[in-house]
């Protein structure tokens, strides 16, 4: 019984902070509100007994969103949000697209008979099985992802260098 309550609570928190991300005019608060969305998602993962994914989500998103905060302070014109500038365009069509996307997802969620309710392994067992999965069946995906990440890191650094010697 606790699981739907926890999921519902964290879900409401995530939605509220996601709305705050795009409504607040202070840039650092916007980035920290996005962090709060990710923390709420991490909480839902932990409530769904995916312990490793929940802890990993909490850890990675904290550093990622703080780095996003510093980039916002660097590149945006009014990081403190004290100027009350209008930062949006085509609000009505954007709202329409967003509402359509949400409606499609909601329809699928409610009107399809998904089934479910199976037993989950213990967290220690989950860690072990995930490790076996990474090193066994998904090894090719893992290696390809690793090389792609390295290439992307080098490319992003190369793009951002100011002056070639």
């Amino acid at each position: 019984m606790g699981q739907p309550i926890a999921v519902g609570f964290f879900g409401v928190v995530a939605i509220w902070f996601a709305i705050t991300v795009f409504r607040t005019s202070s840039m650092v608060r916007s980035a920290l509100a996005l962090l709060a969305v990710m923390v709420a998602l991490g909480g839902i993962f932990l409530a769904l007994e995916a312990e490793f994914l929940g802890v990993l989500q909490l850890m990675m998103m904290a550093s990622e969103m703080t780095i996003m905060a510093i980039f916002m302070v660097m590149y945006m014109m009014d990081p403190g949000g004290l100027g009350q500038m209008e930062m949006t365009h085509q609000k009505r069509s954007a709202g329409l697209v967003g509402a359509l996307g949400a409606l499609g997802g909601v329809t699928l969620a409610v009107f399809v008979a998904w089934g479910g309710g199976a037993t989950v392994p213990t967290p220690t067992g989950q860690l072990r099985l995930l490790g076996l999965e990474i090193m066994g069946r998904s090894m090719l995906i893992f290696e390809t992802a690793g090389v792609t990440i390295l290439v992307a890191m080098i490319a992003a650094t190369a793009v951002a260098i100011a002056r070639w010697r």
Partner: protein
Amino acid sequence: MTLTLCLLVGAVLFGIGLYGAFSQTNLVMIMMGVEVMLGAAMLNLVAFWRFLHPQAFSGQMFVLIVMTVMALEAAVGFGLATARFRAKGSVEMEEAAELKG
């Protein structure tokens, strides 16, 4: 029932992220909209893994890959934003019309 609840939350988050990605003019804010959408997708993945196939760990593998790609796409996006800022002095996407028409 919990599965439907998770999918509902994921759908609403996806809609909010889509609205944000379409309505914001600044590159960093657009990227934040994309991050919210990816977060909603990850939530759906974990919910499907937990309630439909808890024995198949390729679901968790998928979530790991999506999490890594989120971080990566943010990094590459910020590299592009740095280059653009150095060239033009701002990252407003309304002014990025050089290739238009």
